[in-house]
């Protein structure tokens, strides 16, 4: 079953951590990528800071979608990135998601209903 591992956290908080703490978080990602890579294909992406984002408003009749600067929703925590891969079941997905456990992010595991397309090897 295909699961997504979604990462939420405070925009910019990670950047303020000292290098050794950042290193620890990165090691979790590397370990997860290694473990996933040994099992088969997976997808992952880290999103840029929300200041680089624009948001398309819902379309109103007879008008193009309004494009606003900034991320969707003015919240404390933001969507930072994700992984997607086949797992046996939820327990296994959670086991893998634990690689990313840290004080600095909230990790959501959610089944994927449909997936398509290809993520570039090098963004």
């Amino acid at each position, binding site marked *: 079953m295909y699961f997504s591992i979604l990462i939420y956290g405070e925009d910019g908080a990670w950047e303020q951590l000292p290098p050794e703490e950042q290193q620890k978080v990165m090691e979790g990602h590397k370990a997860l990528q290694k473990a996933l890579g040994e099992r088969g294909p997976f997808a992952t992406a880290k999103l840029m800071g929300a200041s680089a984002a624009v948001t398309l408003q819902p379309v109103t009749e007879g008008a193009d979608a309004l494009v606003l600067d900034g991320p969707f929703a003015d919240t404390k925590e933001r969507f930072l990135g994700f992984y997607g891969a086949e797992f046996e079941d939820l327990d296994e997905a959670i086991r893998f998601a634990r690689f990313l456990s840290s*004080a*600095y992010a909230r990790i959501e595991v959610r089944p994927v209903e449909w997936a398509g397309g290809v993520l570039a090897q090098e963004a």
Partner: protein
Amino acid sequence: MRGSRFGRWNGPAACWLRRPEISTWLDAQFARCRPRAIAALTRQFRDIDLAEESFSDACLRAVTRWPQDGQPDDPFAWLLVTARRAGIDRLRKTRRAMAHVEAEMANEPEFTMPTADDLRDDVLRLLFICCHPALRRQDQLALALRVVVGMSVAEIARAFLVNPRTMEQRLTRAKRTVASNPVPFETPAPAERLKRLNDVSTMVYLLFSEGWSTSADTVQVKLPLCHEAIRLARLLLDLFPGMAEQMGLLALMLFQHARLDARTDPQGKLVPIDEQDRSKWDKVLINEARALLQKAARHGPPGAMQLQAAIAGVHAVAVSDSETDWVRLGDLYAALYALQPTPVVRLNQAAVLQKTDGPAAALAMLEPLVEPLSAYRWFHSMRGALLLETGDKPAARLAFERAMDLGPTAPEAQSLLEKIALCQK
């Protein structure tokens, strides 16, 4: 993995984090909340020192409360409410209360969180207070780093290469100057807001430049200034997400900062941009900067920050110095000169013209600058290089010698002497 200590902060105490992680996390939270909190407190108390003291009180309290009670849902609101109470307590003790604080205390139970719009103007005002025209530029930067960013006096002194006592005195003096020339605390009119935003953006960019312009042995020491400038630019963009020039400001600094790892060689010597190993440029920062400029371009004709960023961007995406898009650079400098007709912009435009139209055309462009830039050593070293290229060795030599008289750095002097020798052959 059993009994993992990670997870929600407001989970049971058993889920608590390891000690070093707590303090790191708390510091990051305090740093994130600080600019908005200090700004809001400064409006409430009309007193920067009191704002700083009461915010420190709140942080101290958080250090003991949060690990026991769990992180509050909204740490910023918690810190602000706690700091405000701490500040009022301090006022009661020291009796330095004034009319507006009395009024503030009178409606204490009805304290409401400042709105996003209020906070936006508060942070802008606080930064604008730091840009006070009566302060020397470096003192403006130091004050912003101390008050808004929360860097310690020792850290600031180190980055500015002065001793901590001197910096302490300068900051004290700067705060006194600022307090005696208050900035109005009312919500600014749109034109005033825009003016403040421009002044503050300039200050943030100068902070970056201060950190970036350095000699080989101080690259690391001055780096915090660049980091803080980028952080402040992100903060401004966060507060003013639709301002194209703020996107330009951040993009400009990111394009430059992307070259960090390439600008020193293994011996620690500075490497000029045209000799840098471009594979060491940070592609992520370059891409973020490009995305910001693309966003900004949707807002209409670019302003000066965006044009400067676009210029930096042309260099950032060129695979080599020789393959730089000089024609596009020429257009960008022409557009920048239309907005900012300064001799230095013209000088840079001439440097590009040399690449597209040759040294004679560039020399013609420099002609009107002889007087305004007579004391600017890069003008003379560049003019010398152009004259040398056209074969006018005696004139080139005079130009290089003039540059030598204007206090070049050691590596510059070395290169000037080599060129003077060339002129004598």
